[in-house]
């Protein structure tokens, strides 16, 4: 098969290229240039840096596969960065990796692969594609510590048909060992954790610089009294403690953000307990399943037993069997049964109903 491999310059995607090549596939390596400096240069920090693409090039040379740096800056900026800023400005907590997978990696990149007559695209995500009777299922990776199926929840069977995740059955230490055995220079490279386009910079500064209007306003206590002023709703996210005036005895948390009136509401930890919330923009990998459902409300978080009720074609209500803390509007809720991913959507808190997009 001809496979287009997205190579970030990290060890995971390096090993993907190496494994596929050793399995006899025709492998083509691509570094997706997602973000650039003012003069079109690759950034120096974060992900997609010039040195990352140089690592990817060296790996491709070592594997003797064709390698290209292709420009996705326009899609990325439009679909991921603008969305990131917009979400913060609306008091929501964005997940740019999900947006990038949805709009760039498994859309634009996949289309380009088809144009280049590739049978499949492959990435270094830890997740599994399982074929059953000509439908394609998405499962958690065997190595659960690294499972990334959460950020891939928007993929449907028809997309998964063209996707390979060769690391789904391998552990991270094994990946590093394979890289070392293949003599790849990325074998012991540190994993990147930052939001790729923000790098080590504070994401709030990043958002600050890109929001035109002031979003400063009042901090409101649970009894309705004012606790002073805040400098912008985008500096808060539900469940946050930082930035709230102290001296109140018990620690206070952000419980709700009213963007329209620029108010940040705070309360006690118990006020953050959530038993039920909505998911919107919901998609399902295959058919809807309602047995033994669990949900992750953050990337690689605990699987919480739940039931769902469809409200419309693309929205549903989730009821947790046990209430939990820290469900943040804007993040994604991803439904599983066992290791099989059923679908997911963006969380809308009942508390924040006024903010529903």
């Amino acid at each position: 098969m001809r496979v287009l491999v997205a190579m970030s310059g990290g060890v995971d995607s390096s090993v993907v290229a190496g494994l596929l090549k050793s399995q006899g596939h025709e492998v083509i390596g691509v570094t997706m240039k997602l973000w650039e400096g003012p003069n079109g240069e690759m950034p120096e920090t974060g992900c997609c840096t010039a040195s990352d693409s140089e690592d990817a090039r060296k790996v491709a040379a070592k594997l003797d596969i064709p390698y290209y740096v292709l420009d996705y800056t326009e899609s990325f900026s439009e679909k991921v960065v603008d969305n990131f800023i917009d979400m913060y400005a609306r008091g929501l907590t964005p997940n740019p990796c999900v947006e990038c997978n949805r709009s760039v990696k498994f859309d634009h990149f996949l289309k380009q692969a088809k144009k280049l007559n590739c049978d499949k695209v492959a990435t270094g995500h830890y997740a599994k594609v399982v074929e059953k009777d000509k439908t394609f299922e998405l499962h958690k990776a065997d190595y659960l510590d690294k499972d990334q199926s959460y950020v891939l929840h928007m993929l449907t069977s028809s997309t998964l048909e063209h996707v390979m995740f060769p690391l789904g059955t391998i552990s991270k230490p094994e990946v590093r060992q394979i890289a070392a055995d293949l003599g790849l220079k990325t074998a012991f490279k540190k994993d990147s954790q930052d939001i790729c386009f923000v790098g080590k910079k504070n994401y709030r500064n990043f958002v600050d610089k890109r929001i035109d209007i002031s979003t400063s306003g009042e901090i409101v206590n649970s009894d309705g009294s004012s606790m002073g002023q805040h400098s912008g709703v985008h500096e808060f996210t539900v469940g946050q403690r930082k930035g709230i005036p102290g001296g109140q005895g018990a620690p206070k948390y952000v419980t709700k953000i009213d963007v329209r009136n620029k108010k940040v509401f705070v309360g006690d930890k118990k006020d953050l307990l959530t038993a039920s919330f909505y998911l919107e923009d919901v998609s399902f990998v295959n058919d809807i399943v309602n047995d033994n459902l669990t949900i992750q409300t953050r990337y690689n978080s605990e699987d919480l037993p739940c039931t769902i009720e469809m409200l419309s074609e693309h929205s549903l209500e989730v009821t947790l069997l046990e209430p939990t803390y820290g469900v943040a509007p804007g993040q994604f809720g991803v439904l599983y049964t066992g290791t099989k991913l059923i679908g997911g959507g963006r969380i809308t808190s009942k508390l924040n109903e006024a903010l529903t997009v």
Partner: protein
Amino acid sequence: MKKNEYLYLDHAASTPMRDVAFEAYKKTEAEAFANSSGGHALSRKAKNILEDSRDNIAGHFGAAPKEITFTSGGTEADNWIIKMPFINNKNKSAELVTSEIEHEAVLASAEWVESLGYKVNLVPCDNRGVIETKDVLEAVNSNTEIVSIMLANNETGIIQPVKEIAQGLKALNSKLIFHSDVVQAVATTKLDFHNLGIQSAAISGHKIGGPKGIGIMYLSSEVKLPSFLHGGKQELERRAGTVNVSGVASLSAALDEQQQNIISQNEKIRNERQEFENILKNSQDIIVLGDDVDRLEHISNIQFKGFNSETLMVSLDLQGLGVSRGSACASGAQKPSHVLQSMKISSDVINSHLRFSFGWNSKKGDGIHAAEIVIASIEGMK
């Protein structure tokens, strides 16, 4: 051509070295490796080769030997002539006139001049890709120090009215320097600098089958220019640094072979390009830039409406055809070409252009073969 042989159509970026150039390089390194500025027998041998090569090269361009200085390439020559007139220039109103479609070596140097506070006038080209003489002359005034207009554009191959501009400038009776980047033109043109009427020119060795890292700065004896590189007193005290004598000898040999065969070489290139363009025109919805104006024999800049040039270039590469998207870019940035922008090519097709460039070692059948690969790629992408 054998089926799995890679077809190279990016000669505008660089050409393979000619055998005679290789031989000259090896022979010089072996027999005359010494520093050409030294005082012993081996240095004299190197110096003799250097000066014989200079005489020979000057002869090909209708120039006097002392008007030829060897540089590291075209970029150095462009930098030198564009920047130096503005170093310590007492006239703070001094101006530079150049065009929007120049090579980056000129444009980036012009930006640097501008950053010093001098005025830079950028003349656009017309929709056909041609710079109009009157536009250049209108941009010139008594403060203009230097005018720089390329002889032919590197992305489109479109030839510019340099001789006419030179005559116009002369009529203005100005003391300004008229420089021309002839790096691309020299690949398929016989040039006489005096006849062209320019005072300065930049040439690069590797565009004509010579080695990389060697270039020529032609500077008319009427012009005095401060040095760009300081150090030893090489190159008539104009450029410091041990002279790359092997590179010079190699370039001289490449130039000999090229100039002696230029008519037959161009005929071969013309035929292949013609065949290539005709096949594509007859079967695809394409536009060839510069079809109705004077154009260098070896360059085809083609618009593939509805196709992304980056994806198409990758597809061609995977099928064994090497071309470029205009000018080489290492970072993969898909910036619209400044040349196509100056030609007012609309934004929906500006990233749909590829440059195919034939060269001295292009073979009969390359045009047909390239067209077949392009058609297969396009059909595959539909």
